[in-house]
Structure formats: structure tokens, C-alpha cells
């Protein structure tokens, strides 16, 4: 919601949150109207508790080119991808016994941060996805064709996504150390999971205080030259910042 220029009252008015007026006489007892359009193409996913992901069992719509990852030939989704689509009525999530898991319950799954995504991560994810960006968890390959992947574990039959995630977690496991959460690509209708190319930037989620210079520096080292952006979420408002090193040119 950045606005440049403008002065005085007008700028203030533009920047304020949009608030629905609950005092309008016709808004009392008004049945809730969905913000989303009725969708005729609804995909279906089944939650796999062990994998901590949903497996897509019915694929509808064109968003699958940029959503979900391929594991053992199957299309799987993280919880934030599922919730984003479910909120929009584009996906129904069921438990293994076929029962529908409603959006309220999916919120609860995210709140627990049990499946690698916190509430704030979801808000950042949703914000960028709504704008058309392609967003995936940092450190997670788009596709894994077979089980044999460089993994330090002794047991080759282990689920390799888990293995990958765990080793990433362990690498970053220092209390209150900032870490990279998502990799983000510009909107791209020709995006291919099999050859995604480099992301446009990597995203680090912030809570609490702004990052210190040394925290930024440590993260930059992990970025391998890719641009780094920070996301700060406050009371549902999502903001993005960069702290790029930019030496000023020497003037004549």
C-alpha cells in the first residue's frame, strides 16, 4: 500500500485501512456474502498427516502449473497452498476417510505451526499469491523424481522431502536466528516446475524488531547472490522491505 507524493489530509485518507460500515441500516442481520466468485472448477486434495502435505486427487484449473510440488510422481501441496485455494473456494480438502476439512479447521492446522507454516507465513504467502507471484517454500525442490537424492541419512528409504526439510531446519536451528522462508518468482504464465530458473528474490519473515545489520549480512550469505527481501506482518497488514547494500558512487 505504498503511496508516493500527496500531501496533507488526502494522503492520510488514502493510506487508512478500508473499513466496512457496520452502522448502515441494511447491514444488520445481512447474510454474509462470499467475497469470492462461485467457482465451477473445484480441485480436491486429501490430507496426508505423515507427509504433512495434501495430495491432489482431483486437479482443476490452471493454477497447478505454479502451485504444489511433485513427489514420487504425485502433486502435493503444503498447508499454506491448500488454505489459500480453500479460502477462495478453488479447493476442497478432505481427511483420508473422505470427510471434508472446513476452512476454519484448516486455520487451526496453520495456527499450530505443525506443518512448517506459521500464521504469519501464511499471511505473507497469501498476500503475494493474490498478486500473482509464484511462491514456494525455500529449500524445497519443485520436483523430486525418485527417492535417491543426496541425503546424509543412513536409511535410503526415508521420505526424502522430510529428510530435506529436517536437514534445512537443523542448519537454521539457532534460537531467534532469522531464516529464509519463501522463494518468490515473478508472475509467469510459462513457468515450469521442471526448470523454474532462479527465483526473483528470497523472502525472510520478520516478527518483533527490524533486523540488525549483521542479521541481514548473515542471511545474505545464504542467498547465494539472489535478492533478499523482508516481510513484516503487523495486525494483518503485510509490508515488504529490503536492506540492500548500495555503495554510493563517488562523484567527480
Amino acid at each position, binding site marked *: *500500500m505504498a503511496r508516493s507524493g500527496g*500531501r*496533507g*489530509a488526502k*494522503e*492520510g*485518507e488514502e*493510506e*487508512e*485501512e478500508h*473499513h*466496512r*460500515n*457496520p*452502522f448502515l441500516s441494511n447491514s*444488520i*442481520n445481512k*447474510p*454474509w*456474502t*462470499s*467475497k*469470492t466468485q462461485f467457482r465451477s472448477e473445484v480441485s480436491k486434495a486429501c490430507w496426508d498427516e505423515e507427509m504433512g502435505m495434501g495430495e491432489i486427487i482431483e486437479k482443476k484449473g490452471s493454477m497447478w502449473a505454479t502451485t504444489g510440488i511433485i513427489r514420487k510422481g504425485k502433486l502435493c501441496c503444503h498447508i499454506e497452498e491448500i488454505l489459500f485455494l480453500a*479460502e*477462495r*473456494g478453488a479447493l476442497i480438502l478432505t481427511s483420508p476417510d473422505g470427510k471434508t476439512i*472446513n*476452512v*476454519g479447521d484448516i*486455520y*487451526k*492446522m*496453520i*495456527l*499450530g*505451526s505443525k506443518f512448517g507454516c*506459521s*500464521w*504469519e507465513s501464511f499471511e505473507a504467502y497469501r498476500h503475494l499469491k493474490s498478486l500473482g507471484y509464484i511462491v514456494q517454500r525455500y529449500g524445497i525442490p519443485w520436483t523430486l523424481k525418485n527417492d535417491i537424492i543426496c541425503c546424509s541419512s543412513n536409511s535410503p528409504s526415508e521420505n526424502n522431502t522430510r529428510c530435506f526439510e529436517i536437514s534445512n531446519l537443523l542448519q537454521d536451528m539457532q534460537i531467534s536466528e532469522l531464516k529464509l522462508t519463501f522463494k518468490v518468482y515473478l508472475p509467469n504464465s510459462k513457468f515450469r516446475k521442471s526448470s523454474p530458473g532462479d527465483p526473483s528474490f528470497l523472502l525472510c519473515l520478520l*516478527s*518483533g524488531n527490524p533486523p540488525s545489520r549483521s542479521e541481514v549480512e548473515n542471511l545474505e550469505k545464504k542467498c547465494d547472490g539472489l535478492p533478499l527481501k523482508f516481510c513484516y506482518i*503487523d*495486525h*494483518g*497488514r503485510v*509490508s515488504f522491505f529490503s536492506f540492500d547494500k548500495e555503495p554510493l558512487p563517488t562523484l567527480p
Partner: protein
Amino acid sequence: MELTGPRWKGKEFADTALANPMSEIVSRLRTSLSPSMPNALLSGCTALLEAEPDAADLLERTSIGQNITTFGGDKQCFQLGPEESFYLYHGLACIRVSREDGTAVAESELWNHFCSERKTFPELYKAYSHLRSKNWVVRSGTHYGADFVAYRHHPALVHAEYAVLVVPENDGKASSTRLSAWPDLCCSLRLCGSVAKTLLILYVSTCSGDRSSVCSLEELTVEERIIRRWIPERSREGKCLAGDDETQ
């Protein structure tokens, strides 16, 4: 430009506000929620509360939380910030709080949780509840470079009047570096002016230095001060000597 009094967003909104005093709406909210004591789920700084239609309507009217419901259904889902959660839990005593696994969170636990997320939570909450007790509507002000923004009534009806900065004090001395250097103070003042709000400082003090428990809330005191820039060039007519918000 002189900014005096509230700026209503519509012609009849001042009357709407008069006909719907915030004190009454808050009271109705408490009456609506207390019998059922709905449960809010806690995660970090956020709590999610599912509310029945009547309660949802009142939460909207008091402008507490953010309605994040995207779908039809009986219940509506509200996202609450730390001060809002604690206000409903402790101030109005009309909700319970639990973790997503269902275990209830006791008052002291909730207090400690928010304090661990934010060092100045005691002062921030004291400021929030102080303003709410005077029936101002309080929302997050981070985006404006302040702790809170305060509205005379619902934000849909009126523009925010104050950008609120909370300055903790211990035994009369500031315990934060906020506003302790001129560039910071001028920055806050200029920023507030450019978004047409007055800068309100709430000095929240403790004498005993104890901020460790909910009980310490009672001992915190709040002093309201307004920082304004006075422009002598504009005040020579004598019309306004008190102050003139800079809107350069």
C-alpha cells in the same frame, strides 16, 4: 491548516455516532459474549476467534479485531492482535483462550506469553485499555509509525484523530530511548502531520518497577500529553496560540 475536532467521513456520520455511543456497544458486546465465553485460538501474536452472527456484528461495531471470513457459514472468524485479545479476555472478561491443541491458557500464562513476544506489552496494553475505557476506538498504528491510532468512533465513520506513541517510564524516568533524540521526535511529528493526525504521547509509568504480572496493571499510571509544533508566523492574529499541527 487547522485540524480541530473529528473529521467525519460522511455527512450524517456524526449523528450516527451520537446515536450509537461506543460505551453502549462495548457493553452489548460483553453481554453477548459472556454467557458462551467463546474460545480464541492463540498462535504467536495472533488469536483467532470464531463468533456467532450477533457477536460478530458487535465486534465489527466496536472495531475490535479484523474479520477474515472469506466464506459463507454461520460463524465468522476474527483475527485479534495481542492487546485486543487481552482486552476481550481480561478487560471485558468475555472470551477464553486456548492453544490450537485445545489446552486452555490461564491469565498469567497469557500475560507472560504476550510479554515474551513484546517487551513493552504491559505498557502497550495499559495504553490500549486506557483509551478503550474512555470509549475511543483503538487500532494498530505501526503503519503510521506509531503504536496505535485512535478514532473518535468507528473508522468507517471518522478519520483517526490521534497517532499514539507509548513511552514507558520507571519511577519518572523514561525506560526507552523513544523520542529521546530530536530527529526521532521531529520524525514522529512530521509523519503524524502528513497523515493528518495529532501526536498523542501516553507516558505509562510504574513506581514499583514491577511489570511482571497482570496485577501490576493496576499500578501502572497513564499521563496523556500532546506534542505539537507551534508556528509563530501563523499565530499572530491571536486566533490560535495553543498549537498548529504542521501540515507542510
